[in-house]
């Protein structure tokens, strides 16, 4: 931190944190409760329709302020992000512990009525996700060499692989739901959909982060801290997948 920066003479402020919180508030608690608790699809759609644009506005404005300030970056975020990931690890761990507790105390496993879950799709998904970590890494190397166009090209490929991963999750879910293996079928479906769904939601968040790297990059603005941070998060999501496939599919 440059020492002349250290002394600030005015009160600092930003619109975007409050906008983002307001968006989350409308879209998630109110949107969910309107539909699931009070059975009003219209109210739910209104809340989500109000909340999601606020979330996008908040994130975009926030990222814009961050990019505009990119030359003063401290790099502290690259310490903060791994600290944050510790809490993500604990979320996944408590889901896995719940799964182990249900599975190890069950009289028989899989519980009667569970369909066979094939390994073909998950192995294909593994290949997709692992290669996406490598393609992002290649992009980062291009960026270090100063090749912004190359970075953007590899970023497109990474996003494509991630999106294909989510598509495959959708294909698999459709297939299993078609066999009557719904959320409430038994303890196995409970654990299966919760853990794979929670992981898929992280892939979705990772893709969202990539979009906030991509759009400024298209107009030539690149924050190195943001690029590295997005990569750390993506590799984390990749690593968690190995636990998902080994515990849910293979075991």
């Amino acid at each position: 931190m440059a020492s002349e920066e250290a002394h600030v003479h005015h009160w600092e402020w930003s619109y975007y944190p409050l906008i983002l919180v307001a968006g989350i508030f409308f879209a998630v608690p109110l949107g969910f409760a309107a539909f699931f608790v009070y059975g009003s699809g219209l109210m739910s759609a209104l809340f989500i329709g109000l909340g999601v644009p606020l979330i996008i506005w908040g994130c975009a404005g926030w990222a814009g302020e961050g990019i505009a300030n990119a030359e003063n970056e401290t790099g502290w975020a690259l310490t903060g992000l791994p600290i944050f990931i510790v809490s993500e690890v604990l979320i996944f761990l408590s889901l896995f512990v719940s799964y182990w507790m249900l599975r190890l105390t069950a009289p028989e496993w899989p519980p009667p009525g569970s369909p066979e879950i094939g390994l073909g799709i998950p192995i294909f998904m593994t290949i997709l996700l692992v290669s996406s970590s490598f393609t992002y890494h290649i992009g980062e190397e291009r960026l270090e060499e100063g090749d912004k166009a190359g970075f953007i090209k590899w970023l497109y490929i990474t996003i494509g692989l991630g999106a294909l991963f989510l598509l495959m999750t959708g294909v698999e879910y459709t297939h299993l739901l078609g066999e009557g293996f719904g959320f409430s079928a038994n303890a196995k479906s409970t654990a299966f959909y919760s853990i794979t769904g929670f992981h898929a939601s992280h892939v979705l968040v990772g893709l969202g982060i990539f979009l906030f790297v991509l759009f400024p990059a298209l107009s030539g603005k690149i924050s190195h801290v943001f690029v590295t941070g997005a990569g750390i998060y993506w590799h984390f999501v990749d690593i968690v997948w190995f636990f998902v496939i080994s515990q849910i599919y293979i075991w």
Partner: protein
Amino acid sequence: MKEWIFTTDHKRIGILYLVGSIAAFAVAGIMALLIRVELSSLGPTLVEDASQYNVWLYFHGAAMILAFLIPGLTGFVANYCIPLMIGAHDVAFPRINAFSVWLFWFAIVLALLTFVIPDPPDVLWTGYPPYSVQTDGNTAFYVFTVHLLGFSSILGAVNFLCTVIYMRAPGMGWNQLNVFVWTTLGAFVIQLVMIPVLASAVTLLLFDKYLGTTFFNPENGGDVLLYQNLFWFYSHPAVYVILLPAVGIILEVLATFARNPVFNYKVTVYGGIWGTVLLGSDVWAHHLYTSGMVDWLRIGMMVTTLLISLPVGLLTISLVGTLYKGSISFKTPMVYATSTLFLILLGGLTGIPLAMTSLTVHLAETYFVMAHFHYIMGITATFAVFAGVYYWFPLMTGKMYNETYSQIGFWLNFIGVNLTFWPLFGIGIDGMPRRYFDYQMYPEFESTQMLSTVGAFIVAAGMAITILTWIHGAILGEKAKPNPWGSKSMEWTHCEYPPGPGNFPTPPEVTAEWSPYNYGKHTAQSL
């Protein structure tokens, strides 16, 4: 206005936390009064319907713990004081800090919606299944309140860990930090690691109730005790999230008003604080002694629960030792701080029988438990927050509060809380079960319940006077002298009153001899 609502300055965010948490405290306090009035006589007193009583219990517990104590300590005091104590111009991520405070405010809004929506949440603050899954009440709002507050705390933890790692004034070593900074770091490590587990637990509750999964449904391969384990894995350490910063504030106040360095600094920090953090994660199952568990696990948890007396004992030794041979003056912050020694003693000692499995079989789910945790967690931490508000009042506002009325408020609070909770230990041992709306079968406890209700109203009067002294002081108070308490800590010695943008007119630097407790006696380093 714009510079307040959209502020990213840690001091203003701290004050936003204070206002929000005091608002939550006031509403949750009114719930407590309604509960006490309901219990003051046998049979239905205020309402005919126990589900209304459940809503009060829900709001009182959830708001006091999640929306007053935790944000008051790790939100308000940490935000306001930590950057000033370490000589930083702000926190590491100011916009994330603003994001945290607004998550907290919207969580309070969500909790307050309890009073206007049909079918409000009625699941206490614990949300145990199967009731929380089967009730008509809106369990979703309970879950999302926990989510918003949890997300806020996790981001706060990331922010303050980075702040203390990177933004200490040049020359400031780890053993020169204020004890309050250490206690808050300990609390934030617990928040970071444990809150995700609570968030998972309530999320699974949401899935079970609204999406039809079967985590907690034994009819379809689920397990009710799974929830209790996940819940208490966070919610027992949450006690230390509250206790540690409370002890930190009390130590700051004791050191300043006794003109002494914090006693046994290194042992307090590395043994007391970090010992509590480490052991705190290994005791959760003592909340499940009577819910059903194997005997060997019960004994193991009894041992770890008793072991945690050791680091907490170190903290207590430090509290008392800091007073030893001090030149003490009893201003309002100091009377609050010293009174907590009594409250910690009573609350701590009544915890030991509860750790014993044999005694818990009798005492579980009685008023004894309720009185115990109100002393150690509720009252001690509330008094610590009040000590902190009075202590930093001249710094925050540049003005002084009225000493006489503040002292009157203190004595009403102190007498009131003891009148409210002390008798409850007795009827708890005699078998008065907690959470009962109507206690027809125990008519012998009616007079004690009435006494407790009288105490609660004395507290209400004291709290009203206390909050009025703050409002009056902030608007009409006399101008405060610089450093009115004569503290050596950086927030008093290097700042303007009140501190402006960027905190320090010139960025502070410290030498190896500098200590926040350098009162001309042995310093923290020499111990």
